[in-house]
């Protein structure tokens, strides 16, 4: 559940400075989200394909991830063409399909998938810790970085606690059924999960305070910008400018 399956690769993209990747993904997302030109989206798609090839990741793994998020988007895409006011192109009883609604839905679908894939390819190929470090270097407020980091850490803690409890329950021959007893057991599980995780986070925090934690995250390993990183960030800037011109002309 909380592994970082894409983080431990060794490809061109994996070895890039995470700061460049964060900045690039950020500007890419802004441009793609605000454009209404299909040609810009086409160029964005072309870019995503190139990055995908460079990451050497498995197509199926990526698609599986995208599919999960798309279950939410698809709902919107189905409803929107029938609920958006505009020129009617097809009527099915009380339901009317509008041209504007159709295009609106299409754009939302394309944009969200492009941004999503770009972020997965560029950012999930870094470990959460280097991401937090990189955000620090980009002068993102320390509180926000801590929030991101601790959310990840504590989700881990809660998940492991959950696994432990589940094992304990299974060892005593619990089989879930549709009855009050099962619901009650699950309620106990969730309650003890919350209490235990809370206690544990309290102890982790105390341990940090004992080692002089005062709210900021000192960064141990600095990133080094290599010539390759510099050249690539230049190329990326040119591409983004080109995309921006196409998108906002």
């Amino acid at each position, binding site marked *: 559940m909380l592994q970082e399956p894409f983080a431990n690769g060794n490809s061109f993209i994996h070895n890039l400075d995470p700061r460049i990747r964060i900045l690039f993904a950020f500007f890419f997302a802004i441009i793609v989200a605000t454009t209404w030109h299909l040609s810009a989206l086409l160029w964005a798609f072309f870019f995503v394909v190139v990055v995908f090839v460079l990451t050497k990741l498995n197509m199926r793994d990526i698609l599986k991830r995208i599919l999960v998020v798309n279950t939410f988007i698809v709902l919107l895409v189905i409803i929107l063409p029938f609920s958006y006011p505009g020129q009617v192109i097809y009527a099915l009883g009380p339901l009317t399909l509008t041209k504007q609604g159709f295009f609106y839905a299409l754009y939302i679908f394309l944009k969200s998938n492009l941004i999503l894939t770009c972020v997965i390819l560029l950012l999930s190929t870094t*470990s959460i810790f280097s991401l937090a470090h990189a955000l620090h270097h980009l002068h993102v407020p320390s509180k926000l970085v801590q929030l991101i980091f601790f959310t990840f850490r504590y989700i881990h803690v809660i998940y492991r606690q959950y696994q432990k409890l589940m094992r304990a329950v299974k060892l005593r021959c619990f089989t879930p059924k549709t009855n009050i007893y099962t619901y009650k057991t699950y309620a106990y599980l969730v309650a003890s999960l919350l209490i235990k995780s809370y206690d544990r986070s309290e*102890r982790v925090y105390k341990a940090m305070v004992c080692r002089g934690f005062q709210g900021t995250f000192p960064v141990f390993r600095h990133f080094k910008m290599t010539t390759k990183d510099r050249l690539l960030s230049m190329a990326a800037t040119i591409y983004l400018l080109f995309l921006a011109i196409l998108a906002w002309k």
Partner: protein
Amino acid sequence: MEVIKLEDISFAYPRGKIVLHGLNFSLKKGERVGIMGPNGTGKTTFLQIIVGLLKPQAGRVVIMGKERQTETDFYEVRSKIGFMFQDPDDQLFCPTVAEEIAFGPLNLGIPRQEVAKIVSRTLGLVGLAGFEDRVTYKLSGGEKRLVALASLLAMQPEVLLLDEPTGDLDPQNIKRLVSILSRLSLSYLIVSHDKQFLQQVTQKQFWFEDGRFLPLDTFHP
């Protein structure tokens, strides 16, 4: 000189029973003291009061000759007194061993190049040389324990408080811990249920019950 001095400490958890009542304790520089006692008598509470994680309702906490009351007072205390928790999993939170050990020194404002040296030196000290890039949550119980110890030693403390350090160690790792502790030149206070271990690494042992310290031999056969 007394490094730790508690005078007339009383402590009760909110809506709970009184754990400590009029407790007195002192630890001199260079002293190595072991504490045994039944479960739930407030041994951990006692340790947490020393480093200011819990504040007593009454009494004085004097550390290194100064009475400590506020968080700022205790910030200094914590850089001088390393506290090892019962469960090393509570202590390790960084992804890699190197980052874990660097956390304390970096918080103290030690420059990065210096910290890198401290990390490899401390890892060598606990016999885990070359563990820098290992992932902390994939370590074995014994290794976690040693990394937790290293993360404290990296802050160059004058006193160590160890809360049941042998609970999850096999005999081999206990031997390792004994040899590490005997090589250190600092004072420490160890809470443990392992009498043999305490006799190996400490000079004085106490039995702690009902909020009082009694000489171990008279109360524990």
